[in-house]
């Protein structure tokens, strides 16, 4: 039986909202799904979940992030989840991901949930996924009350949807820096207001995208959401047609 390798990069507000539900789903599946023609757990695959985060839990984030103890976020959360989901394989990588270690952390065939708050990291992971034959990258981010989820799918060396950088110059040429590049003083200044409910909405949208992909029913490459207006707007992101023909991908 093959193992679905899942990487959850960023264990902050979105990651903490996403992980318990992802692990519960991977452990138990859906009561309504059959084996089907899907891509993953519904077809009976085992999963291993790797949490990646170089940050330590701070008490000031307790309003949005649930940790049972102080320490590195990836390690503390993985240990907590391992206690709750005994059948699931869990690992922790206490590092920030960046261009220099992306190849070691994201491997061919991985499903990646990217829940970080900076464009430099998004670019690094998206650029690396472009080099892989197969990969699924689900990236979520939010501002105070709205956010978006991008889904970048690579299959057999071809883009099925667009990389995170396409149509997003703020990611393609980021003006921010990854946490791995920032000083402690700069990191401390990053405490812009966040809302638990928006984190939860983005996490939910990321899981919805994962389920749609797994069922072979993904019909969009990006979805926008706004919790105050109670709106969500999915947008297809098919790769451009090749000159002279060539149909775009399925999405």
């Amino acid at each position, binding site marked *: 039986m093959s193992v679905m390798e899942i990487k959850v990069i960023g264990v902050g507000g979105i990651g903490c909202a996403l992980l318990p539900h992802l692990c519960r789903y991977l452990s138990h599946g859906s009561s309504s799904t059959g084996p089907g023609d899907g891509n993953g757990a519904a077809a009976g695959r085992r999963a291993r979940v790797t949490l990646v985060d170089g940050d330590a839990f701070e008490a000031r984030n307790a309003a949005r992030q649930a940790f049972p103890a102080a320490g590195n976020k990836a390690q503390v959360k993985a240990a907590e989840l391992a206690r709750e989901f005994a059948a699931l394989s869990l690992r922790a990588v206490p590092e920030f991901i960046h261009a220099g270690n992306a190849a070691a952390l994201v491997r061919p065939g991985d499903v990646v949930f990217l829940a970080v708050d900076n464009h430099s990291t998004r670019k690094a992971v998206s650029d690396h996924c472009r080099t892989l034959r197969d990969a699924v990258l689900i990236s*979520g*981010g939010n501002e*105070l009350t*709205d956010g978006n989820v991008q889904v970048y799918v690579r299959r057999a060396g071809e883009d099925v949807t667009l990389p995170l950088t396409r149509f*997003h110059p703020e990611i393609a040429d980021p003006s921010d*820096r990854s946490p791995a590049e*920032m000083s402690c003083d700069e990191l401390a200044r990053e405490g812009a207001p966040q809302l638990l409910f928006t984190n939860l909405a983005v996490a939910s949208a990321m899981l919805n995208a994962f389920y749609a992909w797994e069922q072979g029913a993904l019909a969009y490459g990006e979805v926008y959401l706004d919790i105050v207006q109670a709106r969500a*707007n999915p947008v297809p992101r098919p790769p451009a047609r090749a000159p002279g023909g060539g149909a775009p991908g399925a999405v």
Partner: protein
Amino acid sequence: MTGNPLESAAPLKARGAPEGSGAVRVICGVHALDTRVAGRTVGDVRAALSQALNISPEAIAVVDGVEAGADHVLRAGEQVEFVRLAGEKGLVPGSPFNRIPIRRDQHPPRKPGTGNREPGTEVR
């Protein structure tokens, strides 16, 4: 209270500009509207709707999945999207902390020996 309120509810409007309506669908983030702007340029539409749809000056215009310049003349039935910037971290408009200028010289050097190894601490 009389009857089931769902029975008298108006049907939801179908997505996409109605065929033959002469409308163009304009999207930005969660906002979408069908409007009669066929014959106008992308730049005209951006200027006219920038406040209503909260279109960022940095937003790329995409017409039916293809990046389009400001001088692209829209045709009926097309869809133009002004791609909303990806979410960051609880941004507050005008806050000096929204962006930290990048210093390319601070990229960390690659650590030798990490290219083919997948790091991680096995929890189980």
